[in-house]
């Protein structure tokens, strides 16, 4: 018979699972995948009956028939797929007994402090510029090449301003509003300079890196899967983003009369 594991083991396991779940939600994973990963880590550590409850704003977990129970709050939800991929592969390696619990814990705490590779900010900005310009051409059926560079410039500036304003405020809504304001001002002045450009086309492309269509699709997928609560939360978040972007664009267009 193996001995009953001590308190220290359970604390370690809870810490690891909760941090992993929190990071996955911050990375924009679906809820069922988060639950799956946490349960997999706990089960392969030898806990027979782990229970988890995951919503987009927090993670709850209990081990050892409820003797050990903890929760973590999640304040920030972005899309960062590197995190999702790394934690997923960590949990699989742990389930295959390739690494120990201590190694998993070290790795997860390292990731929580930002120890994972990210693309440099200039590359991300170039990505946003390419995305804005190409999608503008794809969406508008008449292939207008005049707005192509304008959409790239405005999209890149909008993405950069969102990235930097997010550091000053912890209200995501405000950062989006400011980004939309800046984008619309620049687009309007570009149209003043070059009258043959169309401001609607430029803004449609430039808003694409920030637009919540993706969040809405993910929310609906969660809803259809049966995670009603997280689906509703995500829909509310997407609607807030839409209001922020729309408000920013609307204010400037009203003032400038464009």
């Amino acid at each position, binding site marked *: 018979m193996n001995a009953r594991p001590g308190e220290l083991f359970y604390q370690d396991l809870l810490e690891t699972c909760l941090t992993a779940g929190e990071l996955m939600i911050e990375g*924009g*994973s*679906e809820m069922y*995948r988060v639950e799956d990963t946490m349960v997999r880590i706990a089960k392969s550590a030898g806990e027979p009956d782990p229970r988890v409850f995951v919503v987009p704003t927090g993670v709850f977990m209990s081990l050892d028939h409820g003797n050990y129970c903890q929760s973590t709050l999640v304040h920030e939800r972005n*899309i*960062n*797929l*590197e995190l*999702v*991929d*790394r934690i*997923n*592969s960590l949990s699989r390696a742990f389930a295959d007994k390739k690494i120990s619990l201590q190694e998993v814990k070290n790795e997860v705490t390292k990731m929580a402090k930002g120890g994972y*590779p*990210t*693309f440099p900010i200039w*590359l*991300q900005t*170039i*990505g*946003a*510029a*390419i*995305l804005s310009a*190409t*999608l503008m*051409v*794809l*969406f508008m059926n008449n*292939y207008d090449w005049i707005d192509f560079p304008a959409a790239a410039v405005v999209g890149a500036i909008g*993405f950069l301003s969102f990235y930097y304003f997010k550091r000053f405020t912890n209200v995501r809504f405000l950062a989006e509003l400011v980004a939309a304001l800046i984008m619309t001002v620049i687009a309007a002045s570009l149209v003043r300079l070059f009258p043959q450009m169309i401001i*609607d086309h430029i*803004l*449609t492309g430039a*808003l*694409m*890196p920030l*637009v919540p*269509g*993706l969040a*809405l*699709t*993910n929310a*609906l*997928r969660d*809803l*259809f*899967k049966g995670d009603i609560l997280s689906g509703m939360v995500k829909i509310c978040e997407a609607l807030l983003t*839409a209001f922020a*972007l*729309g408000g920013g*664009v*609307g204010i400037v*267009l*009203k003032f400038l009369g464009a």
Partner: protein
Amino acid sequence: MPFWLEIVINVAFAYLASAGFALTINVPRRVLNLAGISGIISWIIYWLAMRASMGRLLSNLLGSFAIGILGIVFARMKKCPATVFYIPAIVPLVPGVPAYQAVRELTSGNLRGANDAVLRVIIVTGSIALGMLLSNMCVEIFFRIKKFYKRHSEKYNN
């Protein structure tokens, strides 16, 4: 513009758009190329369906069905979660134009136009989500049938 040139532009731009978005959301480096490829395939299916005048709902559904299947196939190839491929590939299908139109109509006080645009957004997002769900179901059924046949063939061979 000749038809082949249109196809070339669509393929190149769909790849660039998906890969560009993949850069901004920090996908793992080894899947960057495949994310772009699944973006191409889903956009081309959507675009051809739209040209064949199949309507917005059906073309979005077909495009996202392709995304779902490709996501699972690539996830098995590269051994990483399927979400990594879904999110960059959906981007060209996401209803950006009607969403912007809704905002624009609202700010200019045209409520009826805004209503139309919002409904269009809801229909398109719903059909994208439904398409991915259907493809997940089909893949699951396929693997279950494969497993069943494998077990049976082992039984008969021994």
